[in-house]
């Protein structure tokens, strides 16, 4: 009896530290965000709020949501558009381009060494510390000292087409945003896809070759159809993580708003939804409004997760590299 109880308690004992962390860093902030989203907490009443959580100086209101949805904040529609551009384009790279990449690496390129070099070169941004990655890009695109413009000129891009500042000139800044995030994110899809391609029985590919398929036809008629689930999985996963991620943009463009960078992300047209929330909170100190903006994202995320679960079923979602054979 005691033994049986021990058996049941033991896993919880092992899980406890992680559950505590999850509670502290995920659950508690979620409740706090929901609460703050309905308040007018800002720099003005922040000190009072810190001293006494239930101070009457913090008012409960739905003004924040009015601003988001009823045009109270004229800039929010621009943020929405930038976010769509960001998620859509980076997704194209992370879920679409990485598929072509994986097929090349795992199937078309028969040379092991070349395949390895390609694989590593796409993994580099993932294993580089984020801040270094951002710094390297900052140097790379520098109009005076950076290598990017000379390199583009060298391959024949006319001088007139090159921006004076990759950071600030639209649409170059937006292209930069997409490339920088795409490069770092493509490796996730690449890892999932290459594992899935490697798990396709070689006989299946040999059969297609004997049936008269060219390498391209093998990829189109056999490999890609068999990667349906990995593709959906990567797309779903990346959509969620892109919606919430702004770290690289923050590191390269700063948070904008009223802070030290004085709206550079905004001017550059790279102000995505999650960064906007961040900048409202930490550059403009509008905690209540920032929380409301985040909440919108949380709701979208939950809706997407529900949709995905309906679409894949829980089981399939938990088996990322599954190939249907």
């Amino acid at each position, binding site marked *: 009896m005691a033994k049986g109880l021990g058996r049941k308690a033991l896993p919880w004992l092992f899980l406890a530290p992680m559950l505590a962390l999850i509670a502290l860093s995920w659950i508690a902030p979620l409740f706090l965000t929901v609460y703050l989203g309905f308040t007018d907490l800002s720099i003005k009443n922040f000190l009072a709020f810190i001293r006494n959580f239930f101070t009457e100086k913090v008012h409960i209101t739905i003004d924040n949501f009015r601003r988001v949805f009823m045009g109270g904040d004229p800039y929010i529609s621009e943020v929405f558009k930038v976010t769509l551009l960001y998620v859509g384009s980076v997704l194209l790279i992370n879920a679409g381009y990485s598929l072509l990449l994986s097929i090349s690496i795992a199937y078309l390129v028969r040379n092991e060494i070349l395949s390895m070099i390609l694989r590593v070169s796409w993994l580099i941004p993932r294993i580089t510390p984020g801040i270094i990655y951002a710094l390297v890009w900052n140097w790379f695109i520098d109009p005076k000292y950076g290598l990017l413009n000379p390199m583009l000129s060298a391959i024949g891009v006319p001088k007139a087409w090159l921006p004076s500042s990759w950071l600030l000139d639209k649409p170059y800044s937006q292209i930069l945003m997409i490339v920088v995030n795409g490069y770092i994110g493509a490796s996730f899809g690449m890892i999932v896809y290459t594992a899935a391609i490697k798990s396709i029985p070689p006989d299946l590919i*040999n059969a297609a*070759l004997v049936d008269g398929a060219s390498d391209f036809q093998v990829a189109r008629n056999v490999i890609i159809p068999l990667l349906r689930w990995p593709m959906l999985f990567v797309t779903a996963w990346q959509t969620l993580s892109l919606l919430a991620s702004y770290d690289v943009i923050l590191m390269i463009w700063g948070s904008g708003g009223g802070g030290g960078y004085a709206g550079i992300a905004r001017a550059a047209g790279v102000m995505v939804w999650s960064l906007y929330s961040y900048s409202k909170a930490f550059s403009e100190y509008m905690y209540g409004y920032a929380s409301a903006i985040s909440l919108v994202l949380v709701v979208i995320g939950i809706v997407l997760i529900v949709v995905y679960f309906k679409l894949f079923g829980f089981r399939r979602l938990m088996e990322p590299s599954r190939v249907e054979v």
Partner: protein
Amino acid sequence: MVKVTLDNVSKFFGKVRAVTDLNLEVGDGEFVALLGPSGCGKTTTLLMIAGIYRPSRGRILFDNEDVTGLPPKDRNVGMVFQSYALYPHMTVYDNIAFPLKLKKVPKQEIDRKVRKVAKLLRIDNLLARRPGQLSGGQQQRVALGRALAKEPDVLLLDEPLSNLDAKLRILMRAELKRLQKELRVTTVYVTHDQVEAMSMADRIAVMNAGKLQQYADPQGLYNKPANLFVAGFIGSPPMNFVEGSIREDLSGGYYFDAGAFKFKLPKELGELISSKSIDVVMGFRPEHVKLSLNREEYSIEGQVYVVEPLGRDIVVNVKVGDMLFKVVTKPGVELRPGQRIWLVLDVDKIHFFDKFNERAIV
């Protein structure tokens, strides 16, 4: 239809020598079986003929055209894989139509051909299903259909019956053979089942450890095995072997001395063997031995050890010294373990092999 020639073909995977110096000719319309134990290089050989693997050395000819460097799609080969390798995301219809679509055959033509092949293989009621919804035997026929629909010059079959149950296997054996004769397509059939090879093929290439051991028709393999490996591999239960040496007695006659027993040999046979080798392995098939309760000419004395009834026949294990010989005979005489008995050999059907190079002497 074409004649397929393998000219000194080898395939190495790093240090692994999968196939070494293979010479093989498959005649136009011929049904050849590649027979050998697991890992002897059968699949590798097929994949080289199909063009999936490029030989490390040697040439492959279709008729007189060198196809060694041609990719699979330019060889017009049909292949049934060991695993069937049906496309799981396509219906049976699309599986069979796939090679035709790649050949850009017109739609109605594809439809006609798919239905014809499906009818021939009796899978016309399964066309809308996916491979996952088929039994092993049905999958095997779909795989065959896919290989046949493109009307290949060469048909390659890699142990197509190995996943089927015994009954279906025997049924499909006959059906495959009939089909092959009907279509007259040059066929290479891989198997490790000697009964399958013997019952289906015009000629059999026996392989071991990547090397061709013998290439002959079924009767030839059975009656005149070229070496110890083939002798032991063909026939069930396998041939009995005894090591020993050939000696001459005082009167100028010859006998085979196995230590545990001596076996008198006819003079010409003794002369013939001893002119080639003294240390030999004698082999005789279980079905070429007669059991006798009395000593006879050309017999070996032993004791009944175990009797295994097989229905139509019985296999008697006879102990001679510390060796066990198998004898296939008809049931009838009551045999008790421990009973004294004589193995009477048919002198014309005894084989002798050189002990050192293992080649057949007679």
